């Protein structure tokens, strides 16, 4: 396989994952804005920060409200991470690696791109926002389903999955980092309604407010939520799950190519940092410091994968 093709697949699935994550973030923010208008501005600011586009946003807008933030995140072509921008890049990548995709995956991506262009042609009315966000999530599911259902389980597939999970680990880590203050165990706030709402938003940002209730036999509290998002291997958007998937895919590549690469060792080291850990120890280390270093590890790992498999040189 061409290095360019591997890179094209990897980035295509990073972009698709990013579109989906953005939709989830907006959904959570929108809920806050609806239910607690006094917190709306802060919530939208944190959504923008989590998406890592704060500078670009503030260059353009002088305040935070749902209309401007959702437009910036969904439609603005000046925002390289807007859903329209990333979908365009995902589809360009799909065209570039067309020969490596099954017809079904290609059709799913191309149709998704056409559909997004249609539903995001005009600014989205507040009444339509839930439908539009649902469409984005559904289309992501469609592409993922086509991938799972039709692609050979070979190196092509591994690069697709690596893109997905590097992006997801990065996204989940950012969400935790931006909201970490609401997770800090401050006894005076525990049990206050503000904390509960913040925690629920946090879970909603990764569509996990219900699975938390199913999986965790505990009240909402800082340690149980942090543990769920960071360490729980059952939770498909947790850091531990993402790291585990990355190790699996790199392991399969090492086996298929009979060529273990430095990225495989780095991924195993990352997984080890998230395995059999006590959440309280992480709090003692400092949650922000911990997440910051995880973010750095994920970024370095992504770079190493690009080098190991010659995406660009």
């Amino acid at each position, binding site marked *: *396989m061409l*290095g360019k093709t591997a890179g094209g697949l990897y980035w295509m699935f990073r972009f698709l994952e990013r579109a989906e994550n953005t939709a989830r973030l907006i959904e959570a923010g929108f809920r806050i804005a609806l239910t607690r208008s006094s917190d709306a501005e802060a919530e939208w600011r944190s959504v923008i920060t989590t998406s890592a586009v704060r500078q670009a946003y503030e260059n353009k807008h002088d305040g935070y409200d749902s209309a401007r933030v959702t437009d910036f995140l969904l439609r603005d072509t000046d925002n390289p991470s807007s859903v329209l921008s990333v979908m365009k890049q995902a589809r360009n990548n799909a065209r570039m690696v067309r*020969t490596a995709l099954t017809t079904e995956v*290609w059709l799913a991506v191309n149709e998704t791109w*056409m559909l997004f262009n249609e539903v995001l042609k005009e600014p989205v009315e507040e009444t339509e926002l839930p439908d539009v966000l649902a469409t984005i999530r559904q289309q992501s599911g469609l592409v993922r389903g086509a991938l799972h259902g039709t692609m050979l389980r070979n190196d092509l597939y591994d690069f697709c999955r690596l893109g997905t999970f590097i992006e997801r680990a990065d996204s989940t880590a950012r969400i935790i980092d931006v909201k970490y203050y609401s997770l800090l165990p401050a006894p005076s706030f525990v049990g206050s309604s503000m904390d509960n709402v913040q925690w629920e938003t946090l879970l909603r940002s990764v569509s996990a407010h219900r699975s938390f209730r199913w999986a965790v036999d505990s009240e909402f509290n800082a340690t149980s939520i942090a543990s769920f998002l960071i360490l729980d291997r059952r939770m498909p958007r947790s850091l531990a799950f993402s790291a585990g998937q990355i190790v699996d895919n790199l392991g399969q590549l090492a086996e298929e190519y009979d060529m273990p690469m430095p990225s495989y060792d780095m991924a195993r080291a990352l997984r080890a940092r998230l395995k059999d850990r006590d959440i309280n120890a992480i709090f003692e280390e400092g949650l922000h410091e911990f997440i910051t270093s995880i973010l750095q590890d994920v970024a370095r790992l992504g770079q190493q994968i690009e080098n190991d498999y010659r995406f660009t040189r």
Partner: protein
Amino acid sequence: MIGKPSPFDEMQGPDGPRYPYATYGDWFAKQNNERLAKKTSEAEAFFRSTGITFNVYGQTDAEERLIPFDLVPRILSSREWTKLAKGIDQRVRAINAFLHDIYNRQEIIRAGIVPMELIAKNDAFLPQMIDFSPPGGVYTHIVGTDIVRTGEDDFFVLEDNARTPSGVSYMLENRETMLKMFPELFSKVKVQPVSDYPKELRRSLEGSAPKSCGGRPCVAVLTPGIHNSAYYEHSFLADQMGVELVEGHDLRVVGGHIAMRTTKGYKVIDVLYRRVDDEFLDPLTFNPNSLLGVPGIMDVYRAGNIAIANAPGTGVADDKAIYSYMPQIVEFYTGDRAILKNVETHRCSEPQSLQYVLDNLADLVVKEVHGSGGYGMLVGPAASKQELADFADKLRARPGNYIAQPTLSLSTVPIFTESGLAPRHVDLRPFALVSPTGVNIIPGGLTRVALTEGSLVVNSSQGGGTKDTWVLGD
């Protein structure tokens, strides 16, 4: 065009459908227009979701466009095709012999048939190809000969596209679309298949690999990238052949060979089907600013370590000035008269011809010698007085840059419109594959159709559409 006889229609004869269209005509008469209109929009939706689109140059961030597809096939009888195929075969062999001669002994110039300056002053002539024979002796692995028709037995070659002819993906997709839309038709009418083209192309390319290549040759398609107008075709052909689609930055010289960067290291390529123009092929040899090519590929090529399809420098055989000499070129190399006719061509470089062209501009089609895609041409009968005057100035300023031809009364084939069938002008581009063992012409081709009533411009960049092209079995 007042007073001219109406053009030859390939479907409707004076007494009902012409022979090749007999069965189709019966079938069509039983269809209802609403169903056909629905089929047309289904076909468009299919083209869009499949991404069978092209980009238009000169517009930044331009929308990808569909080439309109018309559901009435263009049908040729087996007899008509056999004659065409013979003529193309002959012409393609002559072109390859001509190219070899031009870059080696230049006997045709010594014989006084083609003037020296036409070659020497030709931008498409590449000194780097002098005294060199490409692997297997093949220059034009793929040729798309543009053919027009004016009557029952009157076929003319309009252009010999010997560089990187495009459109074959439409030939294949149009057939797939017709099979999907009207499967019942194909059980009624025996149509020769075109679907083997990718397999034949790969076989033909592999057959042209350098002798030094051991084992099955590694073939790759070189594209300028996703923004190229024909990118869809590049990826389609790579996909259908089961070979890699590469860009310049995927390739480099490794140990005297061209190799592509894979996830496991560099892998040698034996045959490169390049869809990048000569000028951009090698920044060390040609345009130094090119990012589309591979630095050093010409050295590797001259060392005999890679086959490039089509060979660099083939453009010298297909420009419109050389075209005017094609009947003599065919005769010189094959010893036979050309089976396919040329369109009468006035070389404006010759003072007498220039005067004739200026005097008759309103009746002629004038083309740039190196132009393509219908750009920069003048269709006299359709031009305003001002346009004619402006063009006459251009002609006087650079006469050698132009040739002129009479306005042919191109044949028509009906297209489907809301009010039923309506005749429109067509041309035909069959595709010939050349390998060291012979010429292989796929029975069919790309029929381009001018969708505007009366228009003669069929180019997709100028609003033309396409049709499926049927060659009937015996």
